[in-house]
C-alpha cells in the first residue's frame, strides 16, 4: 500500500492538547531461537483522545506489535508506552489485565469469541471479570451492547451459529462492555466481506463519534482513508503519521 500517498489525503486529526496514547522511543525485539527479530525500531507516536487512527503497512512491518503494546498484550523491549496518563509498560500482568478490562476494548481479526458461550455470555465476560455492578446490571448492559451492534435477537446463539460479520459484531459488543475510552481493532474487517466490513467500519465511526479513541490496523486502502489520520509503518519504523 502506498501509505505516504494515503497520508496526503487524510483529514487533519482532531486537535488535542495532550496525547491520549504516547509511544516514546519504543523498540520491540522478538527472539526466535538464536536470532533476534526487531519488530519495532525506536518509534515515537502520539495519538490524541477521540482520534480515529488507521495503522497501515505491509505484513511483518510491526502494525500488530504497536497494537499489542498499546493494549498491554505485549511489552516493549525499550521505550515507554503511556495510555490515558498511565505507564502501561511498567504494569504487571495482573495490573494490565485489570486495566484492559476497564479501559480498552480489543477487537481481533478472527473474532476470538469463546466457542462454548452464547453471544450474550461472551459480551458479559469482561464485566464479570471486572465484577462491575450486579449480575442483572451486567447482563442488561451486555444486552444493550448487543442491541447496539444489531444483534439483540441473537443473544442466545453460539458463535458457531453466527456469520462472520455477526461474530465480529459480538466481539465489538464485548469490546464495548466496560465502556472503554479506547477501542483497538487488529484487522477487524480482515475476515469479512466488503459490505459487512463497511458496516463494521460504520460502527467504529459511530463509536468514535461518541468520543471514543479508535485505533485499527487494516490492509484495506479504502477503510484506511476514512480515518482521521493514517500511521504508516514499514520495517518497524513509522514512515508517515
Amino acid at each position: 500500500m502506498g501509505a505516504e500517498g494515503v497520508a496526503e489525503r487524510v483529514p487533519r486529526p482532531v486537535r488535542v492538547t495532550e496525547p491520549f496514547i504516547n509511544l516514546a522511543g519504543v523498540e520491540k525485539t522478538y527472539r526466535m531461537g538464536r536470532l533476534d527479530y526487531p519488530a519495532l525500531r525506536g518509534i515515537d507516536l502520539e495519538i490524541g483522545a477521540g482520534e480515529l487512527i488507521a495503522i497501515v503497512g505491509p505484513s511483518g512491518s510491526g502494525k500488530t506489535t504497536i497494537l499489542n503494546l498499546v493494549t498491554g498484550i505485549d511489552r516493549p523491549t525499550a521505550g515507554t508506552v503511556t495510555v490515558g496518563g498511565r505507564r502501561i509498560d511498567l504494569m504487571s500482568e495482573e495490573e494490565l489485565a485489570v486495566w484492559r478490562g476497564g479501559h480498552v476494548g480489543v477487537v481481533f481479526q478472527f473474532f476470538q469469541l469463546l466457542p462454548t458461550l452464547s453471544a450474550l455470555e461472551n459480551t458479559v465476560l469482561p464485566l464479570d471479570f471486572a465484577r462491575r455492578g450486579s449480575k442483572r446490571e451486567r447482563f442488561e448492559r451486555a444486552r444493550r451492547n448487543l442491541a447496539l451492534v444489531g444483534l439483540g435477537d441473537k443473544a442466545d446463539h453460539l458463535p458457531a451459529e453466527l456469520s462472520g460479520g455477526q461474530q465480529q459484531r459480538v466481539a465489538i459488543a464485548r469490546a464495548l462492555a466496560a465502556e472503554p475510552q479506547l477501542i483497538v481493532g487488529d484487522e477487524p474487517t480482515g475476515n469479512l466481506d466488503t459490505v459487512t466490513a463497511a458496516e463494521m467500519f460504520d460502527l467504529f465511526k459511530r463509536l468514535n463519534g461518541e468520543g471514543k479513541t479508535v485505533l485499527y490496523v487494516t490492509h484495506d486502502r479504502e477503510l484506511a482513508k476514512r480515518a482521521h489520520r493514517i500511521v504508516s509503518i514499514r520495517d518497524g519504523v513509522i514512515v508517515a503519521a
Partner: protein
Amino acid sequence: MVTSLLRKSVTDLSRRRSRTFFAVLTLALAVAGIGLFATPALMNRAMAAEVAADRLPDLTISTPPLVLDRAQLAALAAVPNVRAVEPRSSFGGRVYVGARRAFAQVLGIPGFTSQQVNVVHVASGAAPGLGAVLTDVQNTRQGLLDVRAGQTVRIIAADGAVRLLRVSGEGRNLDGGQTVTSDGVIVLYATPATVASLSRTPGYDQLFFTLADARPAAVTATTAAIRRTLATVPGFTGFTDLPQVRAPGDWPGKSRFQNFTSFLYIITLLALLSALVLIANTVTTLVAEQTSEIGIMKAVGGRRRQIAAVYLKTTMLLGGLGTVAGIVLGAALAYLVTSYLGTALFAASVGFGIDWTIVLASALVGLLGPPLAALPAIRRAVRTPVREALQATGSAAGG
C-alpha cells in the same frame, strides 16, 4: 442467573459432550477401582452372617473315636463356659469318580435337625438316613464330584470293600466347603452309623464347642475342664491334635481369601495409578487445548486467579460427575466380585452392601484428584503471556 465465568466452566463440559463423556468415564473407572477395596469388608460382613448361621465352633477338640452317650454329652455341655457341644465322626477314604479314585471325607452328623454347633445345612434334597449321604455343594462347584439326589457314590470302605451310598441331596457347611476348595477333598455328610459302617470304628473323633467367653485364659481353663470330663470316658487317651481355637471374626478360608484380595489390591492399585495418570493427562490436555481461550480471557480483563478458577471449577465438575458414576459403579463392582468369590470359595450368598469408608475414600480421590492433577497445567496456562496464548490461534501474531 449465573456469571459467564461459571457458565464457561459448565458449558466447556456440556457443549463438548463426547470429550466430557470419556473424561468422566476415565474418572469413573478410576473411582470404581477403589470400590474393590470394599471387598474384604463386604466379605467379612457376609461371612459373619454365615458364621452365625453355621454356629461355627470357638473350640475344636480332636480325640480318638469315642462312643459318647447322652449323659456324657450332657456332662460336656455342662462344663463351665461351654454353651453348646456337637460331636462328629469322620472317615477318610476314597470315592470313585468314574474310573478314577479321589480322596473323600465322610462326616457323621448325629442329628441333622438338632445340630447345635458347626451346622451342616441341607441345601437341597433330604437329610440322609442309613446308607445315604449328602454331597457338599462345593463338590460340584469345584468339579470334584458331580452327583445329584437319587444317584449313588461308590466309596472304598476301611475293609477295602466298595460300598454304594445313595445321594439324598446337597449339604452346605463352611468347614466342609473349605476342605473341598482348599484341600481338593470330596466331602460327604452322613449319619454316624453310616460313617461307622465305613470305618468299622464307631464313635466320635471331633468335638465342637461354642463358648461363653472365648478369651485365651477362659479357653485354656475350659479345655482343661473338657479334658478332665473326657478322662472319664472309656477309650480316651488324650487329645489327638492341638485344640483349635477360632479367633473372634475368623472364618474358614479367611487367610486364603486375604491372600487373594492382596493380589486383587495390587491389580487395583496399578489400575488406580494408571487411571490417575490418565486423569492427569486428560485434564492437562483439556487445559492445554484452551490456551488461546485463556489468552482471550486475559485480553478482555481476566486475572490469573479468575481464569484458574474457571478451569478448576470445570475439573471439579468433571470430578463430581466421575465420582458419582464411579461410586455407583464401584459399589456394583465390589458386590459382583464379593458375590462371585463368596459363591465360588465358600458357597456363601453375599447380599448387597455399602462400605461407607470406601465410599468416602472414593469421593475424596474422585473430587480432589482431578483439580489437583489439573493444577500444574492450569498454573502453567494462566502464566502464559497474553500474546503467546493468543498466538495459539494466530491472533496477535500479525505484522
